[in-house]
């Protein structure tokens, strides 16, 4: 990997003071910052090529269409999919809702089961609750082992038993930092004929990933968590599966022929993209992928894990600190609870030292309750973070313990 200091130069936002201190941005699991290269592509699009796609044959429209469809190819190559298996979405949440609607409504019946895990983000839980309400299907949960936050794999085969039609799980937990063995989970589900959806919100921008290697049926992620702008993300779906689904939204761009009372759809993926898409977002997402691949996803993943392990070690030095997540093989996400000090007090205090942390339930309320917690404090790293920042952070935590002691 390039030197961190060199990479940091690519991120204008990191070079600012917050409350009189150099900003330490440790809220990457919520959203990452954007490098100059991505912002330049965004600007170039609007300064030179902006036009609506697909329906036009003038020069700008052709440029925009070519760039938009090239972005789809780039996303496909980034995750090892075929171009026609990539549907652009607003982000992870929309991708999951799309599958719950288009696949779920068409395939689930009362009594069918959906297997989730106890560590799912609300976005990989609530759409299935709504689907269960609509269809009469039932949700069941693969438990975690406790504070360590590992999936209880011994229970998997039993839970994947009769009646389960879909297994949806997160690749990397945003609340615990667990890296789930996604390939194994998909393989075991496929053996039982169960469709899989991988929530890759925390993994696609952080680690090498190939949907063919994983063997998943659907995979979803958000651009904003991997150096791209907000409002763009993608859904991968196995082509034959995508082709077999009814549309999600109706409207322009996704149709072949429209009559007063009936219409025919384009093939996947366009069938699932009704209306003018986020053209500049898709193009900038492709630029973000170029940027990440230039650094190297192996290197990013190694750096993440290295910082995660270092932070965990340093945090263990603090008294009265309950560290969540796996002992080893944790990602760059570190979540903890300080006895008697609420996460929001920690976050407010740290913010006063220029450190951006997240406190709360991290959109995993049931998991928090399962662990007997109201909230945790979370620090999440990316390739532009370093050990010195973690040292500052641990120092501030000490200060906080004294202040509220």
């Amino acid at each position, binding site marked *: 990997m390039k030197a961190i200091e060199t990479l940091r130069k690519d991120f204008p936002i990191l070079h600012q003071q917050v*409350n*009189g201190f150099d900003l330490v941005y440790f809220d990457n699991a919520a959203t990452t910052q954007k490098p100059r290269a991505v912002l330049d592509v965004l600007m170039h699009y609007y300064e030179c090529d902006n036009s609506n796609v697909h329906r036009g044959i003038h020069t700008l429209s052709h440029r925009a269409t070519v760039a938009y469809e090239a972005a789809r190819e780039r996303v496909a190559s980034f995750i090892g999919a075929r171009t026609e298996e990539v549907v652009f979405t607003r982000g992870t949440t929309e991708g999951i809702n799309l599958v719950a609607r288009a696949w779920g409504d068409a395939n689930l019946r009362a009594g069918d089961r959906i297997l989730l895990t106890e560590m799912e983000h609300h976005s990989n839980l609530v759409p299935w609750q709504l689907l269960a309400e609509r269809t009469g299907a039932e949700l069941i949960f693969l438990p975690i082992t406790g504070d360590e936050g590992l999936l209880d794999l011994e229970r998997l085969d039993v839970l994947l038993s009769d009646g389960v039609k879909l297994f949806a799980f997160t690749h990397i937990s945003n609340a615990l930092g667990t890296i789930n063995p996604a390939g194994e989970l998909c393989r075991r589900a496929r053996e039982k004929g169960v469709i899989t959806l991988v929530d890759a919100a925390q993994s696609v921008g952080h680690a090498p990933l190939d949907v063919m290697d994983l063997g998943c049926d659907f995979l979803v992620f958000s651009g904003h968590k991997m150096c791209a702008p907000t409002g763009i993300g993608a859904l991968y779906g196995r082509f034959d599966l995508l082709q077999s689904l009814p549309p999600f939204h109706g409207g322009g761009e996704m149709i072949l022929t429209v009559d007063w009372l009936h219409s025919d759809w384009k093939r996947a993926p366009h069938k699932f993209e009704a209306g003018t898409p986020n053209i500049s977002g898709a193009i900038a997402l492709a630029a973000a992928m170029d940027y990440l691949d230039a650094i190297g996803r192996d290197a990013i993943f190694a750096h993440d894990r290295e910082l995660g392990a270092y932070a965990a070690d340093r945090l263990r030095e603090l008294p009265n600190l309950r560290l969540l997540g796996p002992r080893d093989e944790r990602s760059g996400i570190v979540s903890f609870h300080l006895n008697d*000090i*609420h*996460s*929001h*007090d920690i976050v*407010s*205090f740290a913010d*006063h030292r220029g450190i951006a942390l997240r*406190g*709360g*339930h991290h959109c995993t*309320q049931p998991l*928090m309750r399962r662990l007997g*917690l*109201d*909230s945790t404090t979370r620090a999440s790293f990316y390739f532009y973070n370093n050990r010195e920042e973690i040292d500052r952070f641990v120092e501030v935590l000490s200060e906080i313990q004294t*202040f*509220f002691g």
Partner: protein
Amino acid sequence: MQDLADLYQAVILDHNRRPRNFVAMESPDRVAVGDNPVCGDHYTVFLRLEGDRISEVSFQGAGCAISKASASVMTSLLKGKTAEEARKIYEKFHQMVTTGEVDPENLSDLSAFAGVYQFPARIKCATLSWHAALNAVADPEAGKVSTEE
């Protein structure tokens, strides 16, 4: 730069460490719950009424220093007040935490929360238990209150 000591004044830290009236009331006349789903702050406020007057107040629950201290200070202040007086105190309090302007009258320990206005993300913490209490006073069927509502 705002100063942390403005937010976490000594009074607040003290009430946070040793919250007053921090006990579940037996056979209260009114009970209300205050929830901030964003951070998980969760308090139950218990009231006993004599006519229009609040004769006893206590609370239980968990949350950040601001919300806990605010609930604790509130319970001390509301005892003996009428519904109307309670509402007026809250209005001044709300005014203060959103503008920073301290009305020298009547605010007692509440003035410790004057610094909150510099931390807009924390205003909800300061007002959570007040919403619950006022709701309980006003509504015989008082139930759940949430700062998101």
